[in-house]
């Protein structure tokens, strides 16, 4: 009994005392933001046709559908071309900001607004990849995904170092300006009645905005640390819950994909993989597809293997070694799908979702490798050597929840 309560207390301290999985949350932040950024850049020439007011899914058509389904999109606020261009540009910038971790929480919110606005505007343009990004953009808002590998972390580190040297750290200017600006936008939108329809996204926007304001105020409150510590605990709790939801969502994706496949006759007779390879819309490299499907035995193995891996994955989380083997298999399969079925953005989004399960040690290795590569690149460029990013603290790895 005593041991039980002790375990419980330790568990409580873990989920309230730290935002777990800092590297995992950073890698999915970079992955999802990067996928969407690349997608927006790739579709830049087609942006009008996909999401513009005069595209085939015109503003009027979207208006009629959204009046019925109440999805959130700022693109319905005006049917002017200029408004659309501004939104597309802001969506691009928001994903870039989230990618590099600049004002991460605010960037995550803007990223979500960008993803939802464009996708909800033209729902019939998307595929599974868009669907993954749609959900993850919502979940990312709840996480503290800028703890490492971000400009925010670098800034915090520098401020800390300066304070340790006894220097005065100038107060932050950008944050309050961003906050005031977003507040003005929120108020304007509310007063002019733009937040029609669903309440979920507007409520989330207001909540984050209020939370950021409180966080700032609590940081200045000198009479007691307690309010600030409370907010810190709340942020940790939300982060940890968000991360659990993200991981569970990834499991649901694989479980659904796998369990429904079991029911299909083609997945049973071992020919299923042959067919997508021969659909005109999913075969950019017909010769390669023919080569791959030349062997019936190989097709059968891939078909059965796909089902097994997808169904098994959620259960392998209880064994880190098996889980890691499956992660490698799934990432490899998605890399192949990216090219062979012509689904690069879907695959990138899925690989990112897989990455939330990567072991911390591997992510640290990856981070070290990336920063060394960057260091070499910069030195070769002739600029002065930048100090290596702060060594990843060992204790950080210690409080990573699902250290694999």
């Amino acid at each position, binding site marked *: 009994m005593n041991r039980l309560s002790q375990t419980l207390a330790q568990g409580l*301290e873990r989920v309230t005392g730290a935002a777990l999985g800092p590297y995992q949350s950073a890698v999915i932040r970079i992955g999802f933001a990067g996928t969407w950024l690349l997608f927006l850049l790739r579709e830049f020439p087609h942006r009008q046709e996909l999401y513009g007011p005069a595209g*085939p899914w015109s503003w009027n058509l979207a208006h009629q559908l959204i009046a019925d389904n109440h999805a959130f999109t700022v693109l319905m606020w005006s049917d002017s071309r200029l408004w659309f261009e501004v939104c597309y540009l802001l969506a691009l910038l928001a994903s870039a900001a989230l990618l590099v971790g600049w004002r991460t929480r605010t960037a995550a919110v803007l990223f979500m607004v960008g993803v939802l606005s464009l996708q909800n505007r033209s729902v019939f343009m998307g595929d599974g990849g868009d669907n993954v990004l749609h959900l993850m953009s919502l979940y990312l808002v709840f996480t503290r995904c800028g703890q490492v590998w971000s400009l925010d972390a670098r800034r915090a580190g520098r401020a800390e170092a300066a304070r340790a040297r006894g220097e005065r750290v100038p107060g932050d200017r950008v944050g309050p300006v961003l906050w005031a600006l977003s507040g003005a936008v929120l108020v304007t939108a509310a007063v002019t009645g733009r937040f029609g329809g669903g309440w979920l996204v507007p409520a989330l926007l207001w909540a984050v905005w209020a939370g950021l304001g409180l966080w700032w105020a609590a940081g200045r409150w000198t009479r007691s640390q307690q309010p600030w510590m409370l907010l810190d605990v709340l942020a940790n709790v*939300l982060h940890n819950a968000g991360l659990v939801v993200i991981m569970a969502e990834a499991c649901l994706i694989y479980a659904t994909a796998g369990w429904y496949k079991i029911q299909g006759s083609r997945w049973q007779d071992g020919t299923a993989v042959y067919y997508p390879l021969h659909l005109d819309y999913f075969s950019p490299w017909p010769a390669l597809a023919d080569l791959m499907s030349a062997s*019936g035995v190989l097709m059968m193995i891939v078909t059965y293997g796909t089902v097994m891996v997808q169904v098994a994955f959620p259960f392998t989380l209880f064994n880190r070694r098996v889980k890691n083997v499956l992660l490698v298999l799934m990432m490899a399969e998605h890399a192949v799908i990216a090219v062979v079925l012509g689904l*690069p953005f879907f695959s990138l989004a899925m690989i990112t979702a897989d990455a939330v399960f990567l072991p911390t040690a591997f992510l640290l290795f990856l981070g070290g490798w990336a920063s060394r590569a960057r260091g070499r690149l910069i030195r070769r460029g002739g600029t002065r050597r930048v100090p290596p990013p702060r060594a990843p603290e060992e204790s950080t790895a210690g409080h990573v929840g699902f250290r694999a």
Partner: protein
Amino acid sequence: MPERKRDGAGMDAYDEEPEALGGPAGPAGARRAGGPGTSGEDTGLEGPGPTGTGTEDTGGADAPDPAPRAGLAALSPRYRLVAGGALAVVAAVAAVHLGMVFLSLAPANTVSKRHAKAVEGWVYPEFEQNWKLFAPNPLQQNVAVQVRAQIRGEGGDLRTTGWTDLSAEDGAAIDGNLLPSHTQQNELRRAWDFLGTTHGTDNRPVGVRGALSEQYVRRIVVLRLRRDEDLDRAGTIERVQVRSRTVNVPPPAWSREKVSTSPAYRVLPWWTVTGDETEAGAR
């Protein structure tokens, strides 16, 4: 009828059940926005924190071995109560959310049928999802959308063009392409799916969405036809007719299966083109 709002963003899944929604208990009112997204250094508002603690990311790296009192333990009783309550609420909302999403994904079952309304209310519109990726069976037919038009020339003469295979154009654009655009891979394909699911076998539209899908397909084909400069110069498009040509994918060489590879057509009636459709893509 509980309509799907997004019509399965999936790429495939052709023998999908018409409706596999359901919902568990849990009053829709229990849903919360999850509380304020407060956060550390990443807030966009740098709160130096009374202790000068801008660096939670170091997670007490240089603290002495017994774990520093963090989280709940560091709070005074009153604040601990607030934090504990928040923890309970967040955990409950996350659990309910996952339960709702699970029920929306699972095949219609005892629980989800009974609580279909609650599940729908929770999941739509922002958490809708469809992961029947190439399942239960992958699509085994190539569906091509083709169009022809009646064009009124300068002199008032009416001419009917031959059939243009728009899907073949998409296919050609995708061939050898490492980064196919959604305009090539999804636009026409999913518009045709949308039309198929909102029309009866007699090609009559069902509900509001049926009308929307017709307008959508019409706008796509007019936009695509007008990209052909010769055709665009020849006059104004007065009417268009759309049909689909469905061909089975031939079974693999190593299988003994036989399927017919003769095409099946679905021909829609002629549609009159209005000014609204000709503006599509005309910037």
